[in-house]
């Protein structure tokens, strides 16, 4: 983590702004501070490169699963035309990684979207209404949290079958409880505040209060959590691919590539090195940006 930058963010949060106000920093100011946050800027830079490469790569070098060059298998990195060498089918490793990017990243994105869509409203309802609703939702959350994410995802995929859609469902379900917990805690605090009470007194329907007043004001920690969860979702989704239970070959999803490379770690270690490095880079970038967002949006959370 960047020390000096986070110290700056902290002093800004502490002196220029009250904590309550700091949570409601406008988007442009937050973005500017984020770019000055050293580790967050590094993370954003890596993500920028990934997204650019993931968008341009497939356009410039389209992937054709049938195009195997069985003469050129296991070429070492640095050969002309094969910067990272070739794999056991003679496929260009760089091309595979560039084409796999969108699968791995969209797996993470879609899974976190499920976590948000299901977890945020449940958390807000649980915290706002309290009573039996709260108890039921909280016990349900406890149950989901009891299973390690990868075990829950493995069990769901074992039942649903492999494939992109089922991986998204499995990883999405395992990211729901974190959002429920987070939003519930914030809702408990927000529902006691004067503006929520005022909205209630004016006769606003609960759905409107939850959406416009509670969830809207709990967004900062949700954004932080969603960013950190992206990294975690990518780890779990690629883990399923690694075991051959995720996206199926010949789709060059990174976890799947790494799982296949496992058969050749003794003969050709580079095949396992590059896809793993790609996954690591993506997860690291999301974690760095998440840390930065937390410093910028919500100094209380540190």
């Amino acid at each position, binding site marked *: *983590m960047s*020390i000096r930058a986070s110290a700056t963010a902290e002093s800004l949060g502490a002196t220029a702004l009250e904590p309550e106000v700091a949570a409601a920093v406008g988007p442009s100011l937050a973005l500017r501070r984020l770019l000055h946050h050293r580790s967050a800027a590094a993370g954003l830079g890596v993500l920028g490169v990934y997204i650019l490469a993931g968008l341009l790569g497939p356009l410039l070098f389209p992937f054709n699963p049938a195009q195997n060059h069985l003469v050129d298998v296991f070429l070492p990195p640095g050969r002309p035309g094969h910067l990272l060498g070739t794999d056991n089918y003679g496929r260009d490793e760089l091309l595979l990684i560039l084409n796999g990017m969108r699968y791995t990243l969209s797996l993470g994105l879609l899974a976190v979207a499920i976590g948000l869509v299901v977890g945020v409203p449940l958390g807000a309802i649980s915290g706002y209404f309290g009573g039996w609703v709260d108890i039921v939702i909280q016990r*349900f959350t406890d149950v989901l949290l009891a299973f*390690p994410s990868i075990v829950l995802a493995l069990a769901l995929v074992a039942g649903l079958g492999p494939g992109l859609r089922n991986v998204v469902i499995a990883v999405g379900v395992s990211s729901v409880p974190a959002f429920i917990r987070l939003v519930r805690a914030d809702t408990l605090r927000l529902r006691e505040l004067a503006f929520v009470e005022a909205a209630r007194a004016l006769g606003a329907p609960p759905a409107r209060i939850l959406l416009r007043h509670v969830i809207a004001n709990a967004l900062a920690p949700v954004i932080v959590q969603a960013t950190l969860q992206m990294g975690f979702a990518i780890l779990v989704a690629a883990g399923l691919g690694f075991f051959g239970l995720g996206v199926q070959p010949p789709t060059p999803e990174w976890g799947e590539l790494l799982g296949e490379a496992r058969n050749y770690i003794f003969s050709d270690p580079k095949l*396992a090195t590059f896809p*793993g*490095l790609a996954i690591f880079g993506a997860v690291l970038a999301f974690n760095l940006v998440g840390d930065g967002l937390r410093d910028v949006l919500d100094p209380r959370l*540190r």
Partner: protein
Amino acid sequence: MLTYVLRRFLVAIPTLWGVATVVFIMARLLPGDPARVIAGVLATQGDVDRIRRQMGLDQPLPVQYLDFLGSLLRLDLGRSAHTNAPVLEEIGSRLPYTIELAFVALVVAVVIGILAGVTAAVRRNSKTDLIISSLSVFGISMPVYWLGLMLIIVFAVGLHALPAAGADQPTSIVLPALTLALFSVGLIARMTRSSMLEVLGQDYIRTARAMGLGSGSVIFRHALRNALLPIITVIGLQVGSLLGGAVLTETIFAWPGVGRLLIDSIFFRDYPVVQGLVLMFGATFILVNLLVDLLYAYVDPRIRYS
């Protein structure tokens, strides 16, 4: 204290029941006919029907559910579809390996994580802090399955220093334990750092310093003791991610624990074992965290009276 213990137990019971229910629903959600899978490809329709009756799968769902809960109370998890041994025996013979691996990894993670976190907090904003904080983020971002492969490539294939697989040598545990520990090292170091920073800013630390206590005594006797509470919670929660990480680590290093059994059973379509293991993972997590909560209340009297 007794009321607190009772209350925590009463919360744990419905959660355990919920875990069992989720496992039951997942098992019934599986496509395909478990009876046919168990009977094998050569079985006749009659064989399949007989197995279905034996397993009670011809009963209506509510009856199956009650049967399931009843047999759980008798610790009867059924028989493996692959080896026909009782599931409890299958799990029991593998469990010691996982406990050994997870325990070594947890000790490594706690010792390194707390030392690193305390060092980073005490030398806040120094180069040391920057290095420790960066390594901690690396740790929590590292795919366990990739780290394992890289360690095998470097230490087993390259240097021939350590065994790459199995559990038959005393040094076999080194690589899997390191692989499994790294994520928790990163997380515990981060948690310790921020918890220590918070405590170091408190008035009583300034008082202790002003009284002329040595910095070692201030850091370890006064600050760390108070910073430990949130750290204990994180360590309790780590048991879950260690068990999850064990599934990945054990498979990569061919470590004969329950994690590898889970993956093998998924591929064998050995549903009774998968079901038993998922149940065990959930129950272990709940019981360990119940224990952590009780420990927490024992250490911090504010909790049991609130």
